[in-house]
């Protein structure tokens, strides 16, 4: 009989205590866990670094320095004929109103040179702001109003502390005199940072303080609309045909290999294709979201097809058999059962493909969506640019005021991306059915 009480026996055959080899295994496990944690921490650290840099740099662009002036809307200057024609009012000469208002605020300044400095406190777009105000509301004519007008980029940067006043005067973009004017305005509370609504309602501009993101955002939106309208139905139909209908043959193998290869083709190649086919052969108007969307659709198509096929393949075969067993035709089985079940995966793939298209710059450069476009596009055939191209253009601009606008545009782009991903999650949750 085995003597279970013998200490020797327990140690040899029933030992529950750890041994050196077990300890090595545990250590290995712990090490691997830590490798994973460290990798995640590094990745997360970079993410935080990226986001904090962008937000830190771009946050300033959501505020804009404004200067309050008492403007006398003299009828003699802006509408001598008294016709109140809105077009004429918008394009009238408002400069005299500004000079008069500035002289009223700084009556002590008379020297010509000093006056020129004084005018430069305001953005060169301020006259258009007045024009817009008057043409929207002609009853202003003949009255005195306190109006907040956009300050110039230099004043804005100084107010945000981005110009060091202790620097030598010759090395900074703002003179000691300008600073003294700003301080005088500050004393009366006539200079203030306000929410920069112009950034969200304006198109591009040469002046950083007047430049806005709306034109580029709408350009991106229209491009994606065209891209979705083309790529989604084409991609889904291709995937459904290849996965559910096509008999496996050398030809389908070839098509499959080519679709996979297309997904890896550099995007600029699609831009070249768009340039030579869409613009060169079909003469679709260049620089428009229409042609941009078509090029992006070509680029997104393989991604959508691959994602859609994978999600069709993941629908269990028992569902198809159940439908066939009841006498459903192939098309009924496919569109009543298989496609609805694959839809969440298809939509996720599509939205991820679209998100990739949203961030794409290279193919758009080839078809002229890189131009300096001030007007806000109202449809798919208006010349437009896109968010990433706008970021690229602003990053390329020498004016210091564009630095924060570049980061702000990146924030807008990221917000777009996050919204699209949230939409993907929402759709997946809503459409998902378990079996």
């Amino acid at each position, binding site marked *: 009989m085995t003597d279970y009480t013998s200490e020797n026996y327990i140690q040899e055959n029933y030992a529950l205590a750890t041994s050196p080899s077990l300890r090595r295994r545990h250590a290995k496990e712990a090490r691997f866990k830590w490798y994973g944690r460290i990798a995640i921490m590094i990745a997360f650290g970079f993410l935080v670094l990226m986001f904090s840099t962008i937000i830190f740099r771009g946050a300033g662009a959501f505020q804009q320095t404004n200067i309050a002036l008492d403007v006398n809307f003299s009828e003699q200057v802006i509408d001598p004929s008294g016709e109140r024609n809105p077009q004429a009012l918008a394009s009238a000469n408002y400069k005299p109103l500004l000079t008069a208002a500035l002289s009223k605020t700084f009556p002590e300044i008379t020297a010509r040179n000093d006056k020129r400095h004084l005018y430069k406190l305001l953005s060169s777009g301020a006259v258009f702001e007045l024009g817009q105000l008057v043409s929207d509301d002609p009853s202003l004519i003949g009255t005195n109003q306190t109006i907040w007008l956009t300050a110039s980029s230099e004043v804005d940067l100084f107010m945000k502390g981005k110009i060091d006043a202790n620097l030598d005067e010759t090395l900074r973009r703002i003179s000691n005199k300008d600073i003294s004017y700003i301080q005088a305005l500050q004393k009366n509370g006539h200079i203030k940072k306000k929410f920069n609504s112009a950034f969200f309602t304006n198109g591009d501009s040469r002046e950083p303080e007047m430049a806005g993101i709306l034109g580029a955002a709408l350009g991106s939106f229209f491009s994606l609309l065209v891209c979705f309208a083309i790529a989604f139905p084409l991609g889904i139909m291709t995937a459904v045909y290849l996965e559910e209908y096509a008999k496996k043959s050398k030809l389908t193998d070839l098509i499959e290999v080519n679709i996979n290869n297309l997904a890896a083709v550099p995007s600029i190649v699609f831009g070249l294709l768009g340039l030579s086919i869409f613009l060169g052969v079909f003469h679709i108007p260049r620089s428009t979201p229409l042609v941009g969307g078509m090029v992006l659709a070509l680029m997104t198509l393989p991604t959508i097809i691959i994602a859609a096929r994978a999600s069709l393949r993941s629908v269990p075969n028992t569902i198809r058999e*159940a*439908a066939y067993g*009841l006498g459903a035709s192939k098309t009924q089985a496919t569109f009543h059962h298989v496609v609805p079940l694959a839809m969440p995966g298809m939509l996720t793939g599509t939205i991820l493909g679209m998100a990739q298209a949203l961030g794409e710059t290279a193919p758009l450069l080839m078809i002229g969506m890189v131009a300096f476009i001030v007007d806000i596009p109202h449809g798919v055939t208006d010349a437009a640019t896109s968010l990433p191209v706008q970021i690229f253009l602003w990053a390329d601009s020498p004016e210091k005021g564009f630095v924060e606008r570049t980061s702000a545009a990146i924030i807008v782009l990221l917000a777009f991306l996050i919204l699209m991903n949230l939409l993907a999650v929402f759709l997946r949750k809503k459409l998902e*059915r*378990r079996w």
Partner: protein
Amino acid sequence: MGIVMDMKIKTEAAVKPPIMSAKNVDVSYGKKQAIDNVSLDIPENQITALIGPSGCGKSTFLRCFNRMNDTISTCKTTGEIRFAGQDIYDKKVDVVALRARIGMVFQKANPFPKSIFDNVAYGPRIHDLAENKDHLKDIVITSLKRAGLYDEVSDRLDESGTGLSGGQQQRLCIARAIAVDPQVILMDEPCSALDPIATAVIEDLMEQMKEKYTIVIVTHSMAQAARISQKTAFFHLGKLVEYGETDKIFTNPTDPRTQNYISGKIG
């Protein structure tokens, strides 16, 4: 149309011609032959059991009866299978119509991820069997009652069919097959994933169903075949070894291989 009561006058089973008959059927997957020259008659309003060890081809043979093997591209079927006198592999036969006449219940319960009502209503809907909404509801309720499921789900017809228990799901699949009003119901190991109680419920159900339908069932369980079937076919390595009255197969088999299988020596 709709569910019309079986008005056929019952004559003696021996005189009645078989509802389905297979003659010299060969099935191959690529180069591998799965069924080798099988001929077999299925009598009407009876339960015919196909038994045999795993991989003997009994499921493949069952799937020939509603041409389910057509969906597998490498599968090739030759020979002749007749349903009510018509060759079902004839070019003129519409496979959709065939599958409406010959329903199928699968090994793994596969309800659609839709409501219980929609699961049963799907067949009548695609075949335009219901004249209006009330008629459709009628068909669904009758089918659920025939499948012995109605009392358990009558208050939650709009809930998902996938939320039911395994045995209930399988009965839902039977109700779904019945709703199309077929003549023959093929069952591919319908109880293999169920516990003994759920199995007993389904066996009772089949007993009642054979009044109206012809049932062909593939089963692993010899006990089940002995309990429920009137005819039994024993398959081995793609060949039909023995076919006859269930009583005779289980008490007095002629072939030694059948003898060995039912006594547990092979399989």
